[in-house]
């Protein structure tokens, strides 16, 4: 009996904290992507962001990645979060990636949409962050050996053609 009483109090506290949901979130984000693809097989995408609410607290966050998978967002410290994933360096496209972030309610709505076989794109996101991938270095565009060979061929062509002109 006593245990039930305690658990009901805990539940009340639980819902009371959740009722103060974050309103008007101010998000500042920075992103990191691997720049050198000569030594890694996968490009790592990391987005770090801080959320400031005008009132209330942030509930647990979830992110929708490019392959439509929903992943939990890592909490680094209070109001500081990280979303990260990897893509094959051959298939990763350059440009901006928009990552939708959902709060607890949004996540529940997505789960509901998935159960009903409805598209999840209609579920409004809490906010979104941008990860910019400018591309990675895949080695020199023209190998220096090739360049040296082209120059030597040009020089020898000039020499041989001039010699041929003189002899004739």
């Amino acid at each position, binding site marked *: 009996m006593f245990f039930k009483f305690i658990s009901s109090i805990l539940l009340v506290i639980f819902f009371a904290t959740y009722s103060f949901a974050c309103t008007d979130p101010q998000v500042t984000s920075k992103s990191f992507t691997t720049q050198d693809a000569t030594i890694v097989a996968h490009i790592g995408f990391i987005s770090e962001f801080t959320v400031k609410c005008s009132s209330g607290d942030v509930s647990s966050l979830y992110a929708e990645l490019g392959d439509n998978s929903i992943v939990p967002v*890592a909490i680094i410290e209070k109001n500081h979060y990280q979303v*990260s994933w990897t893509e094959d360096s051959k298939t990763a496209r350059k440009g901006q990636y928009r990552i939708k972030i959902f709060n607890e309610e949004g996540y529940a709505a997505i789960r509901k949409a998935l159960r009903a076989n409805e598209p999840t794109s209609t579920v409004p996101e809490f906010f979104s962050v941008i990860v910019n991938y400018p591309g990675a270095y895949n080695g020199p565009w023209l190998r220096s050996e090739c360049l040296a060979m082209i120059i030597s061929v040009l020089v020898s062509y000039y020499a041989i053609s001039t010699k041929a002109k003189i002899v004739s």
Partner: protein
Amino acid sequence: MLKKLLVVLTVLTVGLGVEEKSGESQGARLLVSKQILNRYLVEGKDIEVRYSIHNIGKAPAINVQLTDNGFNSDAFEIVGGHTSSSFARIPPESNFSHVVVVRPNKYGYFNFTRSEVVYRISDTPNAKTRKAYSSEPGEGGIVAFRDFDKKFSAHYWDWLAFALMTSPSLVIPLALWYKSKSTYEKLNKPAKKH
């Protein structure tokens, strides 16, 4: 050793506690694999570490703390992500990855050790806390940047030096020939006019 591919695809389960109660087997169960995604490990260049976390249990894992103390600050600089993070809730039968990018300050052999994960096995208030460990990528040789550069850089400066060194043997005879050619042409020119 250089070409040693360090992607270790072993997934090590570590639920150390023996599940005695039947209720406990219904709880969350996390498998964590720690992988190094590099082809080469090079001093001063990125090393990508990926933690793949799978919840194979029937309940969500609550308050998951993922900590990796393997990268100490005097040997590694963390350039992307955080080695210590937590997740409020990992739903059952789901998987995702957490990525950290570090740069080694030194070269030599380094033992990539396991990371640690602590979580509550369900969202009931009296749920047990479980501690687990990830797989170990093992030892990897970090190559000195000079050696890597010698092998893989574009060598533009080397070729430029080579071109400069070989140019006298080509340019001097060409200049001499051109000089004599132009003097003979000058001599010939007045004769042509008359």
